[in-house]
């Protein structure tokens, strides 16, 4: 027979499991594509997605609903993805490294134009790169990106403008 305290804990655990299952159902896909838009590679995105949900599970009891749950989850995912990107960026900076990464990913079959674009984006500083990817791939508003990255809308607009100009130069484009 279980002790009274154990029943309470079990009940609590089941409640959290139920909430967590709902979160997993609701956000897995959206979160995955968000991470993928930053990292581009499937295997990295898969790792970060898992890490993100593990953190969410651990932090669930202390979540106080001060912000919407998806904003909180997106922030964790963004931070995790950026941390991994930073770690891998050293290798990406080597010539052709991005091309190698995308070629090594069996879940990427973009055309030459997309590869060129991604190579140009990979040359950008971290912040500009992230803002550009979130705008280009997810079409997020500056307000949404601001909430995720904790940066002002003005600074984001400036970063995006610089990023766009650099990419245009890199791709020899007049219009973007």
């Amino acid at each position, binding site marked *: 027979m279980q002790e009274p305290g154990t029943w309470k804990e079990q009940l609590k655990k089941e409640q959290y499991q139920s909430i967590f*299952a709902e979160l997993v159902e609701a956000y897995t*896909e959206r979160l995955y594509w968000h991470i993928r838009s930053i990292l581009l590679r*499937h295997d990295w995105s898969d790792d970060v997605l898992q890490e993100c949900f593990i953190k969410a599970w651990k932090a669930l*009891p202390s979540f106080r609903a001060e912000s919407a749950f998806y904003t909180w989850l997106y922030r964790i995912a963004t931070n995790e993805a950026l941390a991994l990107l930073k770690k891998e960026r050293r290798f990406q900076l080597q010539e052709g490294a991005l091309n190698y990464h995308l070629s090594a990913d069996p879940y990427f079959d973009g055309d030459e134009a997309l590869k060129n674009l991604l190579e140009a984006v990979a040359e950008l500083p971290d912040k500009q790169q992230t803002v550009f990817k979130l705008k280009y791939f997810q079409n997020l508003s500056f307000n949404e990106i601001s909430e995720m990255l904790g940066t002002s809308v003005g600074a984001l607009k400036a970063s995006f403008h610089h990023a766009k100009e650099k990419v245009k130069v890199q791709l020899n484009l007049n219009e973007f």
Partner: protein
Amino acid sequence: MKDQGFKIPEGYFEAKKDQLKALAQESGPVTKAAPKTRILWPSLAAAAAVLIAALFFLPLNSKQNSDLNFSDLQEQEVIDFLNQDPYGVYPESFIELPNSESSEGFENLDTELIESYLNEHSSEYL
């Protein structure tokens, strides 16, 4: 994004969702961790109390020890104490003095001499 050349393995999301839910099932019970400050404040208060107690009591004790002086004792008290010979031996310097075999011999000694001797050898008795 998925239409721009970024693909996923077949059935990836279904499998991933099951895997994530299973992770929560397997892990231990979720308990709300007490904020660190709640643990920190009592510890700090206890440490501060010990420190204050140490500041108050330690110097007082050392002052009490340093204030011990044989000049505060009455002459008769010193003589009685020495006559009791609590340590079982007379100091050598007394043995050489006249009448040192009897307790009355101490009465002939100069008080200052006794005091200075005892002050010099106080560590042996305290």
